[in-house]
């Protein structure tokens, strides 16, 4: 060192305390990961050469899709509207489920460890069961149609949003909430004034993301009888009406793109 601080920091460098080498640990971790990936490749029958060899078959399959037929486009468009409605109400039902569950399932807000545990496990179950399984269940209860699909989406998404909400609540700045608790406000007031303002921007963002995801799910939930465009997707593919199927797929892509653009706008405006 030669600068003005040389007088202070000069002299021989001190001996740093010994540090354990991490090379061995990293090597073991890398090898373990490689072994797991190799075994997984075997399990899923990963054979890239077959993909290269038979890639032409996909072309044969796709040929029929190159000429979309627009004969039924009116009905398909209406089913897209139905799909959006399923997603809208599904997200609303999800909100009604996720807000109480998410608040009770946040460690720093839950009134009792047992309540916390129950809320967390309920959300786990709702998330673990796929919306298609829920749809099959609700079809037996309320019959085929969009109502069953909406319920299935709402309940599954309720578990997802509840989990996200509880994690967001656990990440709040406790000082801001303490400022409300300390004046002697009741529990609901602490939530409304100390917690909600802190979690609102993130939670709104999550809700919009899940709404986009619900649109995509709603577009296929008709396959299991949940109403919407999904029924026609399944029907046209299964009966080899390639032109019709192409139209349905085009409409779904357009619908998903539109909702993504719109929700991005809402997010920008609101947050």
């Amino acid at each position: 060192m030669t600068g003005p601080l040389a007088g202070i920091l000069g002299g021989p460098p001190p001996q740093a305390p010994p540090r354990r080498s991490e090379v061995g640990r990293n090597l073991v971790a890398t090898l373990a990961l490689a072994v797991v990936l190799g075994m997984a490749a075997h399990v899923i029958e990963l054979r890239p050469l077959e993909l290269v060899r038979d890639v032409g078959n996909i072309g044969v399959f796709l040929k029929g899709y190159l000429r979309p037929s627009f004969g039924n486009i009116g009905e398909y468009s209406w089913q897209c509207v139905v799909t959006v409605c399923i997603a809208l109400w599904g997200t609303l039902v999800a909100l009604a489920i996720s807000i109480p569950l998410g608040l009770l399932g946040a460690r720093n807000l839950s009134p009792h460890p047992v309540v916390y545990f129950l809320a967390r496990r309920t959300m786990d179950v709702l998330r673990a069961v796929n919306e298609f399984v829920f749809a099959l269940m609700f079809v037996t209860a309320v019959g085929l149609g969009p109502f069953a699909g909406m319920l299935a989406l709402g309940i599954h998404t309720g578990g997802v949003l509840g989990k996200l909400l509880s994690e967001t609540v656990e990440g709040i700045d406790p000082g801001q909430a303490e400022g409300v608790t300390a004046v002697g406000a009741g529990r609901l007031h602490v939530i409304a004034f100390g917690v909600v303002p802190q979690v609102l921007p993130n939670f709104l963002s999550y809700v919009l993301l899940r709404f986009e995801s619900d649109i995509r799910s709603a577009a296929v939930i008709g396959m299991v009888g949940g109403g919407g465009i999904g029924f026609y997707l399944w029907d046209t593919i299964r009966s080899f009406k390639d032109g019709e199927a192409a139209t349905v797929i085009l409409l779904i892509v357009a619908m998903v793109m539109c909702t993504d653009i719109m929700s991005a706008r809402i997010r920008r405006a609101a947050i």
Partner: protein
Amino acid sequence: MSAATSPVVILERVSRRFGSQAALDRVSACIRPGEFVAVIGRSGAGKTTLLRCLSRAIVPTDGVVRMGGQDLRPLAGRALRAHRARVGVIYQQFNLVKRLRVLDNVLIGRLPHVRGWRGYAALLGFFERGQRDIALACLDHVGLVARTWQRTDTLSGGEQQRVAIAKLLAQEPQLILGDEPVASLDVANGALVMETLRRIASAAGLTVISTLHHVEYARRYADRVLGLRAGRLVFDGAARDLDDAAIREIFGALPEAGTDDLELTPLPEPALVTG
């Protein structure tokens, strides 16, 4: 607002342990209504622990804290909220809800005074006109009415602490606790906040018990000083009796350069700002 006379605060051999560490060790004191009490000591001497025992954020492991004759230990639920409502707390980090507007933060101070169905209306942000008028009057008292509709985190630190004082006024407490209320403010704002607290306290006859990082603040604004060292009360006397011997007793050896003890540098030296 009604002028409230503060309850007598009595500490009887109050101890508080965290694990094997004694943060407070048999502290006894009687604080008369209207006293302005500064609690000083090094970091970790137990100042904040003492304050948290008074706000009933924590319960002493031993000893009794009485406020107006009431033992704080058994308080729970509604009674605990009533205790919190009569004790106003002002923090180093202000503890305002940053994304709310200034007026909303002051209205939070009114929450314990909103009862019945109006409480549910308040959940949605609806307050009676009378409550809003009180909140506005409190904002006016600290000279921040112009900021009413601004988001709180757009204000400077000094302004936020004044909003916190407006919130404190709106709460109509019978006693004020300060947890390093000026430690994160510059000299001018710190003095302004201390003077406002002092004025409010003497006008309404309110007790103020505040930890203060800086001895000079204690000398200038407090009537009485409690000095803590390693959890024990080593000084209890009038602020004017806080001489060098007393300071050595509280802080140990006079601090050297390079330690974290800025408490002894005189105000308003720039040394405070570097802290």
